[in-house]
């Protein structure tokens, strides 16, 4: 088996919140013991609702938040020991909001050229050439290079964001909700841009709450709930044979316009995601779970294999489905 490009080993990111004046400090476990890997050329879908820790996980992989414990290794090398610049050449990120994530006072050329210069490409004509090539690749007109972000539409701005992530020819691109801020008629254009994966030899981590998008692009899928991975497996197993009740609830919650029937009421989750500051004991999902038993409160379920490459953290993983 190929060496994984990215390997997370029991990764945890905890934040300390509050203070003596606010009734004492508390530990917020945004990411709580996540082990994952991404192989070269693979697209891993990371699914979960707001507050589940998926964006914190992304920032930790980018090296932008130090992990509390656990390891992050790129190409078999721990990133804590790696040069920050070398990490940037390997991992890049596309952000959700194309309005907030571009510097309004920089032209497209500057946005794309700065990373190149920082990483040692100083020949003027080579920089210009690579900027023009990259703009063409993401569907922008190279003669628009001297325009500012406000002169572009939301979809075009997201193309700039993608171009910026790809300009250093990274190996792994983390896309954090790349289309959810865009108009619906534009989303397909941006999702189709991910096809550059083959051409550029990329791996992706696709973070999204839109299961339709995740199913469309992912090779493997990991489902996150309150800081923990509750299920992971190949896209087909996750979508056709989900074993964790939360995965089933997520799938049941998607209105399927092509089958106008109500999803089975038993699959839907009740209530709302708990606060990560005060998660329920045992399985974090237990207050919302239609299958809750005493054991779910007393005992934390671990990720156990259901089939080869398919694991679920549910005491009743063999009964679900």
């Amino acid at each position: 088996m190929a060496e994984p490009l990215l390997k997370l080993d029991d990764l945890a990111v905890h934040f300390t919140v509050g203070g003596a004046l606010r009734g004492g400090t508390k530990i917020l476990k945004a990411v709580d013991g996540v082990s994952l890997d991404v192989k070269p050329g693979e697209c891993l879908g990371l699914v979960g609702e707001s507050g589940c820790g998926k964006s914190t996980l992304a920032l930790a992989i980018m090296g932008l938040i130090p992990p509390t414990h656990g390891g992050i290794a790129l190409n078999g090398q721990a990133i804590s020991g790696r040069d920050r610049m070398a990490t940037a050449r390997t991992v890049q990120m596309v952000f959700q909001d194309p309005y907030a994530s571009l510097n309004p006072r920089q032209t497209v050329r500057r946005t794309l050229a700065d990373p190149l210069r920082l990483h040692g490409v100083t020949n003027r004509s080579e920089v210009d050439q690579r900027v023009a090539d990259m703009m063409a690749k993401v569907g922008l007109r190279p003669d628009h290079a001297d325009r500012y972000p406000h002169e572009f539409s939301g979809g075009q701005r997201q193309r700039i964001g993608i171009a910026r992530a790809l300009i250093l020819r990274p190996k792994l691109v983390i896309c954090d909700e790349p289309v959810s801020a865009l108009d619906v008629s534009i989303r397909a254009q941006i999702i189709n841009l991910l096809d550059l994966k083959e051409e550029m030899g990329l791996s992706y981590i696709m973070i999204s709450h839109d299961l339709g998008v995740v199913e469309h692009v992912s090779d493997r899928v990991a489902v996150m709930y309150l800081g923990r991975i509750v299920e992971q497996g190949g896209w087909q197993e996750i979508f056709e044979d989900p074993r964790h009740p939360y995965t089933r609830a997520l799938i049941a919650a998607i209105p399927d316009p092509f089958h106008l029937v109500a999803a089975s009421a038993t699959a839907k989750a009740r209530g709302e995601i708990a606060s990560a500051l005060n998660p329920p004991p045992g399985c974090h999902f237990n207050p919302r779970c239609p299958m809750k038993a005493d054991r779910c409160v007393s005992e934390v379920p671990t990720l156990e294999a259901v089939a080869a490459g398919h694991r679920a953290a549910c005491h009743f993983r063999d009964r679900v489905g």
Partner: protein
Amino acid sequence: MSTPLLTVDDLHIALAGDKTTYGAVEKVSFEIGRGEAFGLVGESGCGKSITALAIMGLLRRPLSLSGGRIVLDGEEIQDASAAEMRRLRGKRIAMIFQEPMTALNPLSPVGRQIAEMFVLHQGASWNEAMDRAEDALRQVRVPSPERRIRDYPHQLSGGMRQRVMIAIALACGPELLIADEPTTALDVTVQAEIIDLMAELCAAKGTAILMISHDLGLVANMCRRVAVMYAGRIVESQVAGAIFATPRHPYTQGLVDSLPRLGERSRRGQQRLREISGVVPSIAAYPGGCRFNPRCPAVTDICRSTAPDITPLPADGLVRCHHHG
């Protein structure tokens, strides 16, 4: 057929710019029957939200009603006075907004905000109104309503706040509930619960719903009929099932085709999504003729010169296209 509850007839809304006036909504007509759920779908800027504001009598400068009729239960309300509209709003037409945090008063406990409805519209005493507010919270399934009634909006989660909004909106048993992107700010599993709750309460009380959203799937699941808006005009209207099975306008066809559908990959393998080319035009630069023509795969000369008229479809449907398939 009996008279519809709401008739919107040839509605025009003008947006006053610095020098010129733009047509933000043009020739919009639809009817909603009693107890019917009707969906209005479109992208940001297409005019769906200001259509709702016009029905509520809430258009403010630079927006103004520039033509057409709004008829509620046989009575024209487009020229009603501010005082008449105040009596109507909340009592007969209620509205739920996208962001419950900004729609609720942050300085007032939620129970009081619900009770206010009974005091203002039904002349109840505050004591009686507070009791009824507690019942209203129970109906929208807020846990321990006797305690929650004293909570301020910031103490509630997004989903709970939207439940409070629903309780306020349905307090006086309105005939029409307008829901403008009611779940866009919520997580998907919470969205499913809120939609179920709204549908269930409205069905029990016979309240009609005007559901406004950019999410075709959500609207089609909840509504009997759906109208699709693009750049200020309704381009197509059909019963919910038909709009997905046989979309007739190229824009609707494009939207339906561009959605990655759950389950599609295992049926047909991984395929490139069909794209709609181009971008949504800005109101200052609406193209002549059919407003979709620069993005349309079936565009011909007539589309660039002449705005298409309505072609009726079966079951009260319509499409506005020269080449409707």
